[in-house]
């Protein structure tokens, strides 16, 4: 069909489609405002002093932005400490998950025996178990192991119950041709060698995906640290906010500053890794 004919087909719809396009934008903009306004209000509030916050409407911009709240939140309210703890937990859990996850996936995916079939079944069965309510009995085990109120408790739980990563690694592995392993075998490489020199490098995209998913889920997890790390110096980002909010005297402007500080790392990671986050999180939805 020529271009001229194309425009002719579309012409009767022209006015209608303009209105439709306008409606589309209107709807999108309203939805985006619904997302942005609650966050913007917190940002505005975080820049006001106590009195100004109480006496102006939420939309009034601060007369002169006060950055004092950010300072208070960072230094007086343990936010720096919570970032440090969160970082430690994330780094160790990610390392642990990647090591155990790739190893499990390698054995289960490449050695098809009754035993590995059974192991795979066991891991898939575990995806059925509802996570939070399992803590009723997991708690007793953590307690018996003597790791209650240590950073080890969440770390071990994040690594040990991380079936999503194993699942992602298995999916990726099934797309890496077995002929690669076989060529390694022909060259006389042992299985551990194949795992380290062939499988691991080829799993890099999967590892990136798992890192993103783990970061987001651990950074945002509230319940595990809340339950297993009650000590004041074991706060993580989620729990420090929760404690700020439940303190006896709440300085809302400081809480707001805390919220903004806590959102910033997420925002940076989202803006820099947008593409990977979309595909990564969606492929990690196995367990949801």
């Amino acid at each position, binding site marked *: 069909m020529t271009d001229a004919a194309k425009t002719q*087909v579309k012409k009767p*719809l022209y006015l209608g489609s303009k209105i*439709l*396009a306008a409606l589309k*934008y209107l709807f*999108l903009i309203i939805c*985006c405002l*619904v*997302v*942005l306004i*609650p966050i913007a*209000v917190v940002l505005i509030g975080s820049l006001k002093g106590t009195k100004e*916050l*109480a006496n102006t409407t*939420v939309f009034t911009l601060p007369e002169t932005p006060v950055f004092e709240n950010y300072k208070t939140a960072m230094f007086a309210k343990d936010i720096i400490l919570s970032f440090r703890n969160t970082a430690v937990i994330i780094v160790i859990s990610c390392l642990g998950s990647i090591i155990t*996850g790739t190893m*499990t996936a390698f*054995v289960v995916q490449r050695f098809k*025996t009754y035993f590995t079939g059974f192991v795979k079944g*066991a891991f898939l069965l*575990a995806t*059925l*178990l*509802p996570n939070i*309510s*399992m803590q*009723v*009995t*997991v*708690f*007793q*085990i953590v307690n018996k192991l003597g790791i209650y109120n240590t950073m080890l408790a969440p770390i*071990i739980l994040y*690594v*040990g*119950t991380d079936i999503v990563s194993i699942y992602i690694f298995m*999916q990726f592995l099934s*797309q890496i041709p077995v002929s690669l392993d076989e060529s390694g075998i022909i060259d006389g490489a*042992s299985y*551990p060698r194949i*795992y380290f020199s062939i499988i691991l490098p080829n799993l890099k995209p999967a590892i990136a*995906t798992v890192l993103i998913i783990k970061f987001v889920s651990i950074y*945002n997890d*509230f319940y595990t640290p809340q339950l297993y790390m009650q000590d004041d110096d074991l706060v993580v*980002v*989620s*729990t420090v*906010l929760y404690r700020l909010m439940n303190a006896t005297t709440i300085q*809302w402007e400081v809480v707001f500053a805390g*919220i903004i500080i806590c959102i910033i790392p*997420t925002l940076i990671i*989202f803006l820099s890794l*947008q593409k990977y986050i*979309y*595909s990564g*999180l*969606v*492929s990690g*939805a*196995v367990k949801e």
Partner: protein
Amino acid sequence: MTKKNRKGFLNWLKTYEGQKFVVSVLFLLVPLALLILFTFVPAVNMVGYSFQKRDQFGVNPEFVGFDNYKTIFQDPDYFITFKNSLYYLAGSFVQQALALLLASILCSKIRAKGLFKGILFFPYLMNGVAVSIIFQRFFLKGQAGLSPQGTLNSILELFGAEPRLWLDPEKPMLANFCLVFVSLWRYIGFDIIMYIGAIQSIPTDLYEASDLDGANPWQRFRYIVFPSIKPIISLQLILAVKGAISVFEIPYIITAGNYGTSTFVIKTIETAFSKKQVGLASAMAVVLLIITIIVTLVQKFFFRDGQEERIKREKKSGRGVRY
């Protein structure tokens, strides 16, 4: 073991069969130990405890048969949580419809697609505690001199409406609707991204053909998009049942489960860790487990074909697998 045998064994270890054995054992040792210790042992304990009257430390547990299960389904204090999950179930239907609408808009020819998509998706990445605090303030009713009107009331005031108490202890229904809204706000971005992926995997020649036939956007949605992504929509709706019964974080932080907004999981955790009735809490966890299993079986039974087809299609288009 004789010397010869040992040598034979060592040699066997060097063969690929032997290596397979050693590598399997070594590589799976830690992951399997963790899986058993933190997933299967607690699961078995959970079922065992659910028939007991038991405190936190398990001192003198007493076998009570199905009493705990009876409590869950007969005590209105516990049973109300099932009712509350219906709000979230209804909410997730709205959420799916809205997500589908937004996804189809974002798949059409518009400007600043990435920006809109990014904004709508971002709440999904936000810290749950941060989201909950933001919305606690959002629904706030102001007090003169102490705090200004919350965001929602401020917006309503712009349109001349009276401010009101949203998280009202007297009106559990309203409070629940507010919490469902927060949940929708937080999670819809994920569904949008998923639907966008599904819509984009529809072959473009179908669209071109419909263009030639002069189909309008609605017809195109009704006859091309909808049939192609129907399996995903149904899957999402089934998973919504699981989601509705597992709601936890948002109501736990915003209302602490007060004002009649408690959910099944909040109640479970409260029973276990505040009331220290581990037996009853285990029974609740078992109920949740059974519901999850039923949903998963339904999902596997009805969607096996659709899912396999989709996985194949995605493999072809070189993208990751969604489920």
